[in-house]
């Protein structure tokens, strides 16, 4: 399928990155700010073949923008929405044709920015789902297909592992250095779990783990109390120069 034009609706960093990826792949993309959507500005979306919504992760905002889009584009046009922890089914249900809504979970951290989870809700039909999956390949992403379950695929696997590692440290199984070294040299992972938690940010990690736990009520998703206490103490990781490790202010803090 020759793609004529993609419409990106939203604001922020991810919208900019995506626009660049499309342009770099030779696919024209038009970018519409979602802050104050006016019918005149939104009308350019009519001529697109896909819409990608990149509004920040807040349910009411996402629904509001989606309803605006719905009024402008044809009823069969696939709409991909970026999502990281909300329920895709709930957002899709807010419009008349939820079967054309597909979820995309991007990773903005530098070393994993090729991956995108392509999420299928209960309502989603085959054609738009496959079209969005293929679209992601066209712009050089590595798409993986997953369902609309809490944490999707990656966080569902990642959070229990991280919790377990942090709990083992809290239980004094070994030192933080030996724990990270074991994982890096024994399993070949790029970074030990405690270092990685510092890079992610303990507060952000806590939010992700709590979100999963509050949906699944399985204790393997519940963050260890040490994480709560560290966040209480202001030890959020690299960004506050103290987490499991201490960081000097001179060290570059990467996202």
């Amino acid at each position, binding site marked *: 399928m020759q793609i004529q034009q993609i419409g990106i609706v939203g604001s922020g960093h991810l919208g900019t990155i995506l626009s660049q990826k499309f342009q770099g792949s030779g696919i024209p993309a038009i970018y519409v700010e979602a802050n104050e959507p006016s019918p005149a500005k939104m009308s350019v979306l009519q001529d697109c073949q896909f819409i990608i919504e990149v509004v920040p992760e807040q349910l009411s905002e996402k629904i509001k923008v989606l309803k605006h889009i719905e009024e402008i584009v044809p009823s069969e046009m696939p709409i991909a929405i970026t999502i990281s922890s909300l329920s895709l089914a709930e957002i899709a249900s807010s419009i008349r044709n939820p079967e054309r809504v597909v979820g995309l979970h991007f990773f903005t951290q530098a070393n994993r920015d090729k991956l995108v989870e392509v999420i299928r809700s209960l309502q989603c039909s085959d054609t738009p789902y496959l079209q969005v999956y293929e679209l992601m390949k066209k712009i050089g992403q590595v798409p993986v297909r997953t369902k609309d379950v809490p944490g999707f695929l990656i966080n*569902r696997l990642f959070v229990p592992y991280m919790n377990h590692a942090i709990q083992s440290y809290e239980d004094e199984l*070994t030192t933080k250095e030996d724990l990270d070294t074991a994982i890096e040299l024994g399993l070949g*992972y790029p970074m030990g779990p405690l270092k990685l938690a510092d890079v992610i940010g303990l507060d952000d990690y806590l939010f992700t783990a709590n979100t999963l736990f509050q949906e699944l009520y399985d204790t393997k998703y519940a963050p260890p109390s040490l994480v709560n206490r560290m966040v209480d103490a202001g030890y959020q990781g690299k960004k506050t120069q103290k987490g499991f490790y201490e960081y000097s202010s001179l060290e570059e803090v990467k996202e």
Partner: protein
Amino acid sequence: MEPKKVGVVGCGTMGAGIAICMLQSGMDTVVCETSAENLENGLNRISAFFEGSVKRGKMTPQQKQERLNLIQETTDLQDLVDCDVIVEAIFEDVRIKNNLFRELNTICNHNTIFVSNTSTLSITSIASGCGRQDRVIGIHFCNPAPLMKLVEISHGLETSDDTYNKAVEFSEYLKKKVVTTKDTPGFILNLLLVPFENDCIRALEQGIATVEDIDLVLKHGLGYPMGTFELLDNVGLDIHYAVSMSLYNELKDKRFAPPPLVKKMIDAGHLGKKTGKGFYEYNKTGMFGAV
């Protein structure tokens, strides 16, 4: 301590790998197996590894021969009498390992240190009543031992500080990076790896994603060198089942219990690379040393 003479009991995949580490560090190495046939298979593993090194230009044929000349092969435990360190890499069963150490205790010099390469069993249990509990310690090598830099050292309740220090020196002599853990099930690596692997299998069972997509997420999203299903096929589903059950029996935590799919695959003979089919299909069976 600079060990002059060391021993390996059991020369399967792990035992052969550990013997290779010893030979590469220039130690006289006694390789002990239960039968002439097992011994020959084990020595072939060792020889094949060095042959591979020669083919890749990492070693001359002469260096290979020098290393092989350091081997003293035997099926008699008596030949381990004057070893400084003996590493056991036999079947993962506490009673069998404990019996071995009891027997070795009656044979070996007073100063000989007994090392268990167990991945999931208790060092304290393996040492129990063997007669030299203070000179028994765990050094868990990672597979493939010649290539992986890490060892996990764990001391049993009765292991002496002197034995611990010697075990650290011995490991460093093998050019391994040491991490120290408690004598708890799975130490660090298997404690964290096994439930993670089981979570991946459960995600597959629940239809959340395919084998290929789960492996893609791990490699591209988390930067892991290998996907879980690739890894499990390499390890063997039968081994994974045994390790999972061993941890579950100790910890009674369902995260460690092997998901039903594992048992089904074993029943169907889908053990991984070694049978040509596991989570993936393979054209030819994987060979040790081909890595």
